[in-house]
């Protein structure tokens, strides 16, 4: 344990080993209560250490080189992983859902993050990886939850309320009029987690980024301003993501003949 120049206390591997003892407590509880979670806990602990150490080294390399193509490449990988995770979480699916999730998260993630780095923080250059990558990560992390919830809700509504939607269509509704309630429900459902988070932020929990900055020795007032900006950025990214995902799915599932192509929707095979 040693002080860093910024005032934060640096952690050694020995410190992390002591922290790992906290996991041992959880493992002992699992053993005593016969929860059979010890193996999973051990695996999760190892994965956490390996994944974070690897990402630490990769980030250091990216930060040192600071080349636009490298930064965009890392961003692309993050978007691909987020898109894949978003699609894995939905109960139902349709052909082309994966690229739509990628496109949605790429657009919503990059547009909000670059707006923040280029127009609010005024970072030079706009792709400075120390800013762009962690901010994009926060937008994508929340965005993928919103997108998967929105898609899940939309596909559920279109399946379970197919008769109602076709009733509207058969009485002269446009596809938009017939789908509007399902689309609104889906966007609403996707937005609820981030709105709930905004409602209680600072009261129930201190966000990780703000906590990190304070631990780093930053002025709490500065950390709070950063956090407010981050919350707005995440909310904007999530809302753009939810709306875009739902609209792209709508365009795929309703034909230009104003029909619902429900046959495209199928249950995902259990993983």
């Amino acid at each position, binding site marked *: 344990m040693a002080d860093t120049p910024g005032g934060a206390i640096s952690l050694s591997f020995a410190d992390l080993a002591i922290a790992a003892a906290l996991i041992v407590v959880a493992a002992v509880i699992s053993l005593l209560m016969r929860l059979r979670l010890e193996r999973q806990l051990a695996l999760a602990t190892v994965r956490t250490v390996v994944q974070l150490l690897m990402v630490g080294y990769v980030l250091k390399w990216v930060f040192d080189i600071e080349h636009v193509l490298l930064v965009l490449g890392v961003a692309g990988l993050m978007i691909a992983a987020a898109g894949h995770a978003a699609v894995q979480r939905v109960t139902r699916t349709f052909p082309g859902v994966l690229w739509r999730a990628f496109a949605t998260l790429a657009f919503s993630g990059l547009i909000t993050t670059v707006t923040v780095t280029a127009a609010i923080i005024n970072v030079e250059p706009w792709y400075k990886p120390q800013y762009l990558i962690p901010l994009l990560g926060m937008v994508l992390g929340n965005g993928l939850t919103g997108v998967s919830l929105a898609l899940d809700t939309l596909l559920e509504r279109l399946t379970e309320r197919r008769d*109602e939607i076709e009733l509207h*269509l058969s*009485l002269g*509704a*446009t596809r938009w*009029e017939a789908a509007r309630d399902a689309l609104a429900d889906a966007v609403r459902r996707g937005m609820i987690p981030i709105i709930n988070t905004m409602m209680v932020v600072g009261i129930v929990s201190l966000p990780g980024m703000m906590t990190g900055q304070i631990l780093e020795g930053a002025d709490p007032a500065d950390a709070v301003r950063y956090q407010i900006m981050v919350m707005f950025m995440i909310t904007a990214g999530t809302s753009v993501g939810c709306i875009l995902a739902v609209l792209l799915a709508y365009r795929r599932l309703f034909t230009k003949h*104003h*029909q619902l192509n429900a046959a495209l929707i199928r249950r995902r095979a259990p993983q």
Partner: protein
Amino acid sequence: MPDVLLSITGLAVAAGGVRLMERLNLEVSAGEMVALTGPSGCGKTSLLRAVAQLDDPAAGEVRFRGRLPHELGWPQFRRHVVFVHQRPVMLDATAGENLRHPLRHRAVQIPFPADHAAVLLRQVGLATDLLGQPARTLSIGQQQRVSLIRALLVDPEVMLLDEPSSALDDDSRQSVETLLRERCTHAGKAAVVVTHDRAQARRLCDRHVDLKPHLTAAGGGPRDG
């Protein structure tokens, strides 16, 4: 010269990749009611859905007053050629709201004709105080009649009726048949009625087309069923 409202030419329908019916040709004129009968699974409902453009037909075309759906726009086409489901679909709202809702569609946009609705309800044996009740709490027979009135209020030129009296008792069936028959005869509207009841087909309709799976079905002469 008959005023042809609906022209079906070479229509083939498929479900799940299987062709259910081949090359149906049928013309329906103003004032006319045509019955479609046939064994279960021969594709009667699929045919009505294809005519209503809820599903694309496997082949052939459907015209309303000589115009294809894309020339009119699909919502406009369906506003004139209305499909009424066999199993009544009620929105999660009062019966009154169920009647009002379709009238707000951009292709319809007509004010709710409360007096006309009350007359129609009475004609099919329903009391107007039923309008305040949640539609899904109504009996299936009441729902079927509300569903029919809802379609009638859109004032379509052609109605595609899938077993319109399947859930009705004799009195209600008779009143529904009378209403539909009068509407066609006196208001110059038309209807295509899918029914498994050949007696109803003969009683209600001017013509009768017996559909056979995988066979060419053609419009027959008056009451040829």
